[in-house]
């Protein structure tokens, strides 16, 4: 047998041909660079502004200073009234996002399992309605939610908003989790049943570990959405000791005449740090999201 594809027969390109080959890449990278530039510019501005006294020509920082970060060690005074400590807000934000995650994942996995595996009347319509529920903008529910929270004595309580947010998030979470459960082979569950487990035990010790990447992804997702929640918290939580970071930021810009942009940048960055750290450590699990996703109704 004669060997084919001899190294000597490799094609030789002229400079023009090489350019022609590269052209699509040049165009693609060019377009991408142009469209990402504003985003990069915004972040750059944010970082530079937070560490400087003022900016000239919009973008050139002048005088390095940590003055804008003083909120970390002292309380901010705004128009005579003192803002609550940033650490209170941070604690509350963590509390809110954390409780939300725990509740959402717990309920979501159970609901997702039922939707994926169990036969019950109305299952099909339930699947469709849950998706519809997710399509509701939460702002349209504000008044109704206010009445209910007020009635239950949960107005101005973080836990009350956690409940509202959980209810709004559950449909989507359950749908995503259902997608992961759909991928668990029946054989695996049956093996568990035959090996001596009850149905609940199978779920807990075989099925859940199997979809661990999915649960991780959903947890991260719900934590992030809890961390960035603003509208519900701003509307239903008013007292200072229950303030969260998003509302804290809002306080800083509430009066357009006295906005301290340096301080605002610094607090914004501070608000972003946990998200960035979180993303760096969990992005591998986050990528699993595409694996799940509802497939079968």
């Amino acid at each position, binding site marked *: 047998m004669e060997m084919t594809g001899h190294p000597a027969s490799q094609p030789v390109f002229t400079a023009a041909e090489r350019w022609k080959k590269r052209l699509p890449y040049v165009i693609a990278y060019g377009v991408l660079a142009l469209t990402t530039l504003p985003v990069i510019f915004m972040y750059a501005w944010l970082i530079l502004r937070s560490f400087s006294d003022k900016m000239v020509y919009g973008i050139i920082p002048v005088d390095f200073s940590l003055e804008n970060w003083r909120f970390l060690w002292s309380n901010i005074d705004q128009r005579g009234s003192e803002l609550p400590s940033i650490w209170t807000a941070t604690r509350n934000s963590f509390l809110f996002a954390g409780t939300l995650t725990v509740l959402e994942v717990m309920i979501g996995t159970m609901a997702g399992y039922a939707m994926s595996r169990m036969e019950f009347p109305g299952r099909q319509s339930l699947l469709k309605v849950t998706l519809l529920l997710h399509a509701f903008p939460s702002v349209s529910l504000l008044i109704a939610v206010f009445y209910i929270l007020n009635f239950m004595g949960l107005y101005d309580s973080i836990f009350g908003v956690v409940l509202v947010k959980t209810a709004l998030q559950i449909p989507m979470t359950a749908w995503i989790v259902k997608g992961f459960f759909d991928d668990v082979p029946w054989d695996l569950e*049956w*093996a568990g049943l035959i090996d001596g487990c009850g149905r609940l035990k199978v779920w807990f010790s075989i099925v859940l570990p199997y979809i661990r990447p999915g649960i991780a992804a959903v947890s991260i997702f719900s934590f992030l959405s809890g961390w960035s929640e603003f509208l519900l918290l701003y509307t239903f939580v008013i007292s200072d000791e229950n303030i969260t970071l998003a509302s804290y930021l809002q306080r800083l810009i509430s009066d357009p005449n006295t906005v301290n942009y340096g301080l605002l940048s610094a607090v914004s960055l501070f608000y972003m740090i946990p998200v960035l750290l979180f993303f760096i450590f969990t992005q591998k699990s986050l990528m699993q999201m595409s694996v799940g996703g509802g497939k079968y109704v």
Partner: protein
Amino acid sequence: MRIELKNIYKSFDKKTNTIENLNLTVEDGEFTALLGPSGCGKTTTMLMIAGIYKPDAGEIRFNGQNVNALEPKDRNIGMVFQSYALYPHMTVLENIAFPLKQKKVPKKERIERAKKAAEMVKLDGLLDRRPGELSGGQQQRVALARAIVKQPKVLLLDEPLSNLDARLKIEMRAEIARIQKELGITTILVTHDQEEAMTLADRIAVMKDGRIIQYDTPAELYKNPKNYFVAQFIGTPPMNFIKGRIADQQLQIAGKSYFLNRSEFDLTEDREVIAGVRPHEIQFDRGGDIRMKGTVELVETVGYAKIVNVKVEEEHFRFFANTATSFLYGSEIEFSFPSASLHLFDARTGASLKREAGKEKELEAIGL
């Protein structure tokens, strides 16, 4: 443990029955195969024995006791799945010990027994691996060890060999046979591979469309298939068939008429028939009393013999020939077989027209 299935019905869509009036008895310690094409209900039957599915009607009995309402975990069965269904987040040892853990066996004893089971299926040195790091054959051994570790009364095997390559298949087949004999455990094997069923099982239930067509020993299925379906399903290479008819108590095939032994075949009615003969019964000479001519289409060498494919009118025949014989493609040859080796089936119903001569004689002998 003796397993009985009585008048079992199972339907998944409430319109058609997946399993229809199924009756089956597996004696204690017996190795039974459920054999049939895919979709014939054999796996459904097995899952009902396991307790995963509940029959719509009928009774399942273990040692005479009705177990219809018993959960799978209380039935004391071990099962090997086609996909092996190993727990991916556990090591091999944890996988094997899992059934014992559910039975609350103390940890030390658990590990000891799991190791012993692993030894039995020749799985040493892999106990700390995860299933994902094992080859298909090794995974299959883990699944087998997990199934036998709790010393179940019944072992269920659902197409256990279908994901293995041909060589490994033969090896695992012997392994399964050995373990089954060693433990003396009542075993039910589901398979679509007739060779697997023939080599492993004491008795085979041939299934089609949710019914058992014939339940017999492998030898009996091979020698006396009750109908056309069983005849064409059992045996490699498969039985040869040719269309013909019975007229005036004679068999007409390939343009000739033959007188057959009337104590062996039911020739009373004139009808269309399908005649069948096993490849190994055909000789490449004029020795048999039924002779045919055909053209050579293909010759396959299998080492110890040649398989000759011959076209006779519109039908195709296969038979074995000596490796020394050479055949010319397209040439006409003559072959023959004894009429005693013939199988006859009603072309419409598929029922065998062979009289159960042996059985009738037996009955006469005991005075009936």
